[in-house]
């Protein structure tokens, strides 16, 4: 990047907030996606205000450099890898909770607010911000919006996008636009809020977010059901839903995951299990025992060989342990952990898990599956070593087949991690040509010079 552009960037954000040392560039060359695909940015700028963001984007248009907006860099899709020497626009310092409006049940925040910090702040008002991505202790609300992050509570409460009422967005051209506000109903024209949710930093930079909140559920009950047969666990999920019970959390671990968890934590789980379900119901205290026992009865009827219902918070913590230990257990098996993300219609869960198992065996790679059974969102997790190039060829082949299998079962290639770089090759097959073309047209219209997060979601857009 030429020195005069760097000087202008420094004029916008201040000398101290323009980072160009080799060490800083390395530290903003990656995100949490695996295998690693680091690319050095040409510079990093820390933005402190909407005005600074707008000025950086205007300069980018004038000087023709590309910009990658970034929060905490926890995304798993390669979404914040600065390809082509882009400038990283770090929004982590715009981290103020601007307002918690307990009368209107809304909160307005800057994009760099950490998800857990928002959760804790609204909890103090007896309120809940439900989206709970696993990385909530690190991830930012801006990043959650950009990726439309989900989480464990998706079945009952939905995902990030279901809670966004309005955004302040700096468009690629540097203009500032507000979409929506505190109104729970707003059909004044196109739903532009939704357009930016999950847009992965390719259409604009979100600089303010208004989310809706709900009353904090009074209490929670937890159950753990263990199955010899995966199919019985899947039938339990269907049975629970069919009984019009909507747990907050309905998580599944496959047999392989359970064995790795047992190796790691020694929780005393049988090693011949086909699956385990962690179910959590929440709501009014008075209803919960009844709901929990109905769910336990369904699980037993569907073939669970053991159902444990926690009668205290201490027991609940113990029941959650297996699910909580899933990722740490798998991450310890091999150096590289590729956490994949596919979604299928709920009824196809057992087929999907079985196909993953077959694919892993055929390609001789280690893959275990856990995920959000309630909403059909599974995380096939591949344990490998990215330094072993021969094995990585097999891994890539296996993962490709998993995405194709999800599509064949009526599912999709990503439920909550986004497309970014990693899923880009599979998008055309997932969405079809007309939908892809519509996306490219929107991109070209809002970002005519292609400066925002180029190469993410689809190939360099103007070439299409």
């Amino acid at each position, binding site marked *: 990047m030429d020195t005069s552009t760097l000087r202008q960037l420094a004029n916008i954000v201040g000398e101290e907030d323009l*980072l160009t*040392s*080799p*060490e*800083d560039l*390395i*530290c*903003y*060359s*990656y*995100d*949490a996606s*695996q295998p*690693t695909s*680091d690319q050095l940015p040409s510079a990093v700028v*820390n933005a402190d205000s909407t005005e600074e963001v707008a000025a950086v984007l205007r300069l980018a248009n004038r000087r023709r450099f590309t910009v990658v907006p970034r929060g*905490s*860099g*926890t995304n798993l899709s390669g979404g914040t890898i600065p390809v082509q020497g882009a400038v990283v626009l770090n929004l*982590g*310092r715009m981290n103020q909770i601007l307002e918690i409006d307990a009368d209107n049940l809304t909160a307005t925040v800057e994009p760099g607010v*950490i998800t*857990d910090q928002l959760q804790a702040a609204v909890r103090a008002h007896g309120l809940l911000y439900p989206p709970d991505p696993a*990385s909530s*202790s*690190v991830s930012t609300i801006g990043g959650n919006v950009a990726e439309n992050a989900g989480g464990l509570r998706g079945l009952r409460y939905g995902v990030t996008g279901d809670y966004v009422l309005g955004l302040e967005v700096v468009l690629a051209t540097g203009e500032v636009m507000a979409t929506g506000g505190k109104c729970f109903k707003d059909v004044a024209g196109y739903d532009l809020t939704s357009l930016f949710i999950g847009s992965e930093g390719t259409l604009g930079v979100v600089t303010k977010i208004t989310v809706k909140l709900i009353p904090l559920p009074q209490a929670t009950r937890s159950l753990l059901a263990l199955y010899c047969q995966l199919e019985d666990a899947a039938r339990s999920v269907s049975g629970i839903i069919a009984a019009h019970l909507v747990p907050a959390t309905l998580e599944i671990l496959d047999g392989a995951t359970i064995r790795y968890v047992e190796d790691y934590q020694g929780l005393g789980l049988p090693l011949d299990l086909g699956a385990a379900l962690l179910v959590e119901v929440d709501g009014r205290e008075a209803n919960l025992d009844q709901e929990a026992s109905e769910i336990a009865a369904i699980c037993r009827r569907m073939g669970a060989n053991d159902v444990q219902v926690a009668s205290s918070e201490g027991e609940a913590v113990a029941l959650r342990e297996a699910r909580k230990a899933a*990722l*740490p257990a798998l*991450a*310890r098996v091999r*150096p*590289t*952990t590729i956490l994949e993300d596919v979604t299928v219609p709920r009824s196809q869960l057992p087929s999907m898990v079985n196909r993953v198992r077959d694919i892993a065996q055929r390609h001789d790679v280690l893959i275990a599956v856990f995920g959000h059974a309630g909403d059909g969102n599974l995380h096939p997790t591949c344990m490998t*070593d*990215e*330094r072993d190039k021969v094995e990585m060829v097999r891994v890539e082949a296996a993962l490709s087949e998993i995405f194709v299998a999800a599509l064949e079962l009526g599912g999709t290639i990503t439920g909550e991690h986004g497309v970014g770089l990693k899923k880009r090759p599979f998008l055309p097959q997932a969405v079809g040509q007309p939908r892809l073309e519509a996306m490219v047209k929107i991109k070209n219209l809002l970002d005519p010079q292609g400066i925002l997060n180029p190469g993410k979601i689809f190939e360099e857009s103007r070439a299409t």
Partner: protein
Amino acid sequence: MIASRVSDLVATCTRCGYCLPTCPTYLSLETERATPRGRIALIRALIEGRLDLSENLAQQVYQCLGCELCTLTCPGGVNIAEILSEAKRILASAEFLPPALDRLRSQIRQSGNIAGEPGRNRLLWGQDYGEMLQEMAGAKGADVLLFMGCVPSLFPMAYPLLRSVAEIMLKTEIDFTILGESEICCGYPLLAAGLSMDEQIERNVAAIAATGATKLVTACPSCFHAFKVHYPEMGVEVWHSSEFLAQILAERAPALRPYPKAVTYHDPCDLGRKSGIYEAPRQVLKAIPDLQLLEMVANREKAFCCGGGGNLESIDPELSHSIADRRLDQALATGAEVIASACQQCERTLLMAARRARAKIRVMDVAQLVAEAVADMGLSHSGKSYPTPPNKEIVGY
């Protein structure tokens, strides 16, 4: 150049970022190079030949407090502490040691202690005991060796800690000895800088063995951790003073005066997370009548560093202070009137933070609290009486 084990460790970081909110330097500096994830990325780039050794790199690596909260939290179980230790070793051997640590190295080499003072100053803390300490030094036959440590014996602000421990031992008639003016540094500050502590180990092992003591007690968690983890088996039991006090209180049940104040306990990293001692200091506090023990949200293995970890305070005082300020806020949030700890370094950094904030909270060692509580007991040691040293509290108003 870099041990292949470290290359393997570096490769296990999946960059999930779960370490970020655990890292005190990141919370203060809010930039990726001040995160465990960022430091590992830099070391990986070094291994892969994409980055050269430089002062810039040294700054990032030596900023690490070595508090190890990241290592505890990492979902993949990556031994981040070992990666950082190895990086420091490489930087130090290539002479990219920060100037403050270079000075520290010379001082320890030349004078045997981190203060760079002559050994004869080692016993100034106990001047009020007259010649007792000099007579005691090197005496054979005592069961217990009190290893004084550089900071408690050479930095006046920490004297009350050592005086309190000695006082309680005297009052409860524990037969103990000290190495006296010939005591040298345990070597841990060198190890934390990426340097060798072999010479210190060799000399200390010999000196400790010569006393014939079966128990080594030290009030310094860093010395304690070094003896426990980094020294070879010495044939002596290594006790931290808080453990020793807990034992004394349990076995001898001395009458204790009430201390009707709300106290929060700060877990020192070297004592807690790195050595597994969480309960002994709490048992000591709970033994004091009317003392109300309040826990900070981040307690025991999740405790947040005081900012005094590693050698940060000598390299980057401003950063160290901002970390201490954060921990002070956590302590103040409990409503406690006193922060008790079991480490002279934590006590100093928290005391200075309290002073900066003009916060109305005292900072004391658990040993000081006990020494105050047992103040009414009779004075005797091997039949001799001795003057009671002024046991001033460290007060952080």
